[in-house]
């Protein structure tokens, strides 16, 4: 038999042991739930959440070069919001629709990761 590098092979002859083993969870594939173990990769997967149009997120990690807007300012669709330098390219982030700047979470020179909420928007009154 080949040597196994898995943590351990559980004693599968004893079902009560499986049912009491915290590594084994109830896992729904369709309508049926199976007793099984999860992989490290599965456990660390990113859980989906609906993106909000009012949150400007970084799609690439990089350095903030310019933030030509201020909190409270109303910015028109298409106007420049930010410049991020990433992979030696200057990426210009434009306003997706006309709205008010609610909060700015970055400053010039800061290094930001991917998927960071850089600027939060709110609707204008009119």
């Amino acid at each position, binding site marked *: *038999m*080949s040597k*196994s*590098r*898995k943590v351990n*092979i559980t004693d*599968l002859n004893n*079902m009560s042991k*499986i049912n009491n083993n915290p590594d*084994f969870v109830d*896992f729904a*594939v*369709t*309508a*049926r*739930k*199976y*007793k*099984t*173990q*999860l*992989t*490290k*990769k*599965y456990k660390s*997967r*990113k859980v*989906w959440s609906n993106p909000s149009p009012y949150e400007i997120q970084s799609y690439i*990690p*990089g*350095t903030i070069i310019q933030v030509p807007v201020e909190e409270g300012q109303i910015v028109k669709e298409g106007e420049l919001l930010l410049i991020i330098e*990433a*992979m030696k390219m200057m990426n210009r982030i434009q306003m997706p629709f006309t709205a008010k700047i609610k909060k700015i979470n970055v400053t010039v020179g800061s*290094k*930001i*990761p991917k998927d960071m909420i850089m600027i939060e928007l709110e609707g204008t009154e009119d």
Partner: protein
Amino acid sequence: MTLKKNILALRQKKAIIEKGGGDKAIEKQMAMGKMTARERILALLDADSFHEYDMFVEHEERNFGMEDKVLAGDGVITGTGTISGASVCVYAQDFTVMGGSLGLKHARKITKIMDHALKMKMPCIGINDSGGARIQEGIGALAGYGEIFWRNTMASGVIPQISVILGPCAGGAVYSPALTDFVFVVENISKMFITGPNVIETVLGEKISQEDLGGARVHAEITGNAHFYALTELECLDQIKELISLIPHSNQQKAIPAKPAKPTFKKNIEKIIPSDPKQPYDVREIIFALADDSKFLEIQELWAPNIVIGFGRMKGETVGFVANQPLYLAGVLDCDASDKAARFIRFCDAFNIPIITLEDMPGYLPGVDQEHAGVIRHGAKMLYAYSEATVPKITVILRKAYGGGYIAMNSRHLGADFMFAWPGAEIAVMGPEGAANIIFRKEIMEAENEDAMRQQKVQEYIEKFANPFVAASKGYIDAVIEPLETRELLLHALEVSKNKDDYRPAKKHGVPPF
């Protein structure tokens, strides 16, 4: 007396080159817990079988002070030898010689031994331990890598190619291993990445250690780039020897057969699968119960463990096993499992190894991450690989075969030569609970007691459809068999398909969903 003098001079010259980068560099290598390139080759090959080629090759770089540097063998040892008596080609980068860096002549030594392997139909084993491109040689180093990649591709499917990562292997260097059939890694020693931690930190501001970025465990468990994972170099070399003994040494040969042996696994094959369909078991126990001597060499054991792949023997002949593993993620198919199985199936097909598929398959893994990662494209690789394969293809349905998974796991419809099912097999479009909910939605909704009605309908569905006999009545299953008969029937199936000849339309090559 001149001859004697010349012989002594030759011996002296060889002794110097055999010292690689010299005592100090060797000490450093040992301090890192690593064997030297020469030690590795000698430990891998049968005693006294190594014949070195191109020992006296020297680089021709004339810039950046390189003109004064003499590099032993230009940092790589190449040659041939035997493993259990079978000839192989081997090369090992010597980290003690300028960090094992790859210059043009270093690369040309490698491509020469690769050409030799391809021509003479021998497996080629490359031991990687190199700081990367020799920057002083500039484009010459890049040319060298490219020439290696080209040969990796030419040799793919003709001779087995094995990459052993026993040190750093970064940047362009990673692509030769990635093009080869089997990659071996060792804990704390192997490091593989395209861009290292320094670049990642400078460009992206993300801090990560070499080990967490591209250490052995990462490639064995997360990326799937590695096929075999060992704790020590010697264990790794033993794994290579075991693999080499199991696979054919070219696409025109069969693997050297072993003496037929009965399984030694003590557990009764009827007792492995729990009666409750929701309970897991280790499908490798079924393989142990079927294979000669109960021996099974598992590949990519830690990555996508929801599918099990590897080699065993049946009556002395090598076979490939593909099996769903209910122990992990209930044995679903997902992106990684499909990639893993598809590549293995193509290896088996290229090298004349019959494939035995053991199926217990609840379906595909649901999830946004899976859909967005392209489970459609990845899943299609498996359909492609099974459909394309012309080696004998045998399936045993152990328990469940639902929906798309039923088709994907080497069904009759993809060209299986033999389809067997155990009597408890459920072959259906989906699990009974799901199916009853859809088919009898109206009855269930209109019933006074919805749950009772649902239970009744689920039971009806189980009795009518969750069995192997519907599929058998249509000829999609050749035989419903008792678990204890399985090995005999597999041996029979392998015996009668010995001369299998399968037609495929003429083409340059297919276009699989890579």
